[in-house]
């Protein structure tokens, strides 16, 4: 047997194993039970199933919370990135300490701390109740990550750009705002979009803090349908939530891939 024939044979065997495996699994599986538990007809009914609450409350709030956390994180991250690049050493130390601290902690710890620790220690409750506190926690953590992304973007802008602006008499602040940052943001659009996707998923942590019925994000709504509603006792609502998450995250990850391809092609 030649080497090529052997390679062809191996391929055939690999495909055969795959097909046999799928067929066996399909025959052995208890399809009616699987369907009742993961795609319960009462739960997935358009008319009176879970979809309405999942979308109008869960999905809408998830997008809203993600936007708030992203906007806040971006503003904080920009401030921290500029501090890290500041000529004033204490600003650099502060920003570095902040970034290392919050990147090293689970987001959940920060969120729970904002929701419970702050009111106990300072008698101060963040605005927006538990959701607001959780979002502040998310912003604090996201800001640390975005700061590093933005710093890398700012440093990727060629030094000649700053020199050209300064040689025209532009002051350091104007140079940063008008010349460096617009170029830096272009560079960091793909990693920032990734950060947005991560935040969409992190908003699910808000479920652990609890929220009023119409403030629940997607995971909380799905969780509540596990024990009440048309598909009680089945995992149907979680499958539905998963689908809704993918509806927003998949296009975004595709967008990132496209942006990265385009950026690689772009010549300076």
């Amino acid at each position, binding site marked *: 047997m030649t080497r090529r024939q052997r390679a062809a044979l191996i391929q055939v065997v690999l495909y055969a194993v795959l097909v046999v495996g799928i067929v066996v699994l399909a025959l052995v599986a208890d399809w009616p039970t699987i369907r009742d538990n993961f795609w319960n007809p009462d739960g997935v009914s358009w008319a009176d199933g879970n979809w309405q609450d999942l979308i109008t409350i869960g999905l809408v709030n998830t997008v809203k919370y993600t936007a708030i956390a992203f906007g806040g994180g971006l503003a904080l991250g920009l401030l921290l990135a500029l501090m890290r690049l500041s000529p004033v050493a204490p600003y650099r130390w502060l920003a570095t300490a902040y970034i290392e601290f919050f990147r090293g902690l689970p987001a959940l710890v920060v969120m729970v701390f904002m929701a419970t620790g702050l009111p106990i220690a300072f008698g101060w409750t963040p605005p927006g109740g538990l959701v607001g506190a959780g979002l502040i926690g998310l912003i604090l953590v996201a800001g640390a990550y975005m700061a590093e992304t933005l710093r890398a973007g700012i440093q990727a802008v*060629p030094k*000649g*750009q700053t*020199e*050209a*602006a*300064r*040689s*025209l*008499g*532009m*002051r350091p602040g*104007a140079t940063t705002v*008008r*010349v460096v940052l*617009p*170029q830096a943001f*272009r560079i960091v659009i793909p990693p920032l979009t990734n950060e947005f996707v991560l935040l969409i998923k992190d908003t699910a942590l808000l479920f652990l803090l609890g929220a009023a019925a119409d403030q629940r994000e997607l995971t909380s709504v799905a969780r509540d349908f596990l024990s009440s509603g048309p598909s009680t006792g089945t995992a149907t609502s979680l499958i539905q939530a998963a689908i809704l998450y993918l509806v927003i995250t998949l296009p975004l990850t595709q967008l990132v891939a496209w942006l990265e391809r385009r950026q690689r092609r772009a*010549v*300076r």
Partner: protein
Amino acid sequence: MTAEQTSLPREPGAPVPAIQVRGLHKHYGRHEVLQGIDFQVDAGQVVCVIGPSGSGKSTLLRCVNRLEEPTSGEILIEGIDICDRRTDLDDIRSRIGMVFQQFNLFPHLSVLKNLTLAQRNVRRRSKDEAVEIARQTLAKVGLSDKESAYPAHLSGGQQQRVAIARALSMNPDMMLFDEPTSALDPELVGDVLAVMKELAQEGMTMMVVTHEMGFAREVGDHLVFMDGGVVVEEGRPADVLSHPQHERTQSFLSKVL
């Protein structure tokens, strides 16, 4: 273009040099790039600086608007000490046009915006005025049809001419050129040199670090040869180029001419 814009007291009748450098030293760590440079450009004069790479000529030019920080020495622009803490460096820089080897146009802005940004931001000109001046300078460098193009869509020669127009839009008192044609394809060099020559003929004060000996001979009023961080020889371009006195100048010229 005169040297009369400074308000510093001086002897009547004695014109203030546009650029005056005295005893300039520049170290990078222990490496001494400039070892005591005395250098002068009078108003309306075109001074070309030549020399092998690593001779310190670009560093000297970049010290003139303090893109490089001098280690010691004095730099006077129209009589004003730019290393003095009381000097408004940004104001001085806005009066010195600078052209870089790598053009350094702002890639996120159209050609017109490249030309109006600093006019608006530094000179505080109105939008209409800035655009009008930008269009005039673009016409001067022969690129009126490119005002809405982005730098990435221009050839190197066009980009460098836009860079010159960007500097001219600020109505500078003098221009610094840092090897303006070194990054260009040979067939594009001529257009840029033609623009520079026209500027020189209009009386612009220019300091040009270059490898273009033809330009230095034809357009320059004064030629400075640098090597190893010192000025080895200077004089009228034709004299220096045709009858170099110093052995290092002779050896350099024999390689490039």
